[in-house]
């Protein structure tokens, strides 16, 4: 257990509304990631963070923004939700000693299920 908490765990919203998902970790890990999970696609990286105020895009970043103002919190925002963003969203952290030693092992939260009507 890497002390990762996601909120909300379930949310139903309407097209065009803003949505923010929160990932909170308790162990001061530097690297945090947001993935979305869709049937047949596995998990795909949306955005990631390598420190406070340091973020970058993943492979499916369109329509999403992130912020990290504190080490422990990584927020994912959908400025104007669309039905194609209906998905399960996972936050993850990696435990690293240095960037060059990262082999890719991640620890995941339990997911946030978002439905956009």
């Amino acid at each position, binding site marked *: 257990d890497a002390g990762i908490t996601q909120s909300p765990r379930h949310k139903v919203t309407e097209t065009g509304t803003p949505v923010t998902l929160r990932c909170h970790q308790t162990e001061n890990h530097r690297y945090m990631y947001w993935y979305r999970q869709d049937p047949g696609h596995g998990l795909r990286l949306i955005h990631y*963070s390598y420190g406070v105020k*340091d973020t970058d895009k993943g492979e499916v970043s369109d329509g999403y923004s992130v912020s990290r103002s504190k080490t422990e919190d990584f927020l994912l925002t959908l400025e104007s939700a669309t039905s194609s963003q209906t998905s399960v969203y996972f936050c993850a952290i990696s435990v690293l000693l240095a960037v060059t030693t990262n082999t*890719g092992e991640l620890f995941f939260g339990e997911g946030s299920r978002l439905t956009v009507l």
Partner: protein
Amino acid sequence: AQSVTQLDSHVSVSEGTPVLLRCNYSSSYSPSLFWYVQHPNKGLQLLLKYTSAATLVKGINGFEAEFKKSETSFHLTKPSAHMSDAAEYFCVVSALALRNAGNMLTFGGGTRLMVKP
């Protein structure tokens, strides 16, 4: 570029019989390879990983996988299935570097394992 193909979206076995979940990968770099398991409504948990040491890798709960470079495969096996093994399994390759954040993970589409009594 890197990619992962899980050859079966669903596998059904009887309790006590062997399990084989197939995975092929492609990568331009020397990859690290992983298998993750996801139980219903849960996050992903690491089963095992290959990082260029022994080609036969043992993981938790009796699972193992063999890295075969000539076949670009990393199949997951278990000699005897248990009811608690019913879950979704993801093969993952890690080779491309994310800017400032270690390696990028690319997930296969997942294989749902069903275990019949």
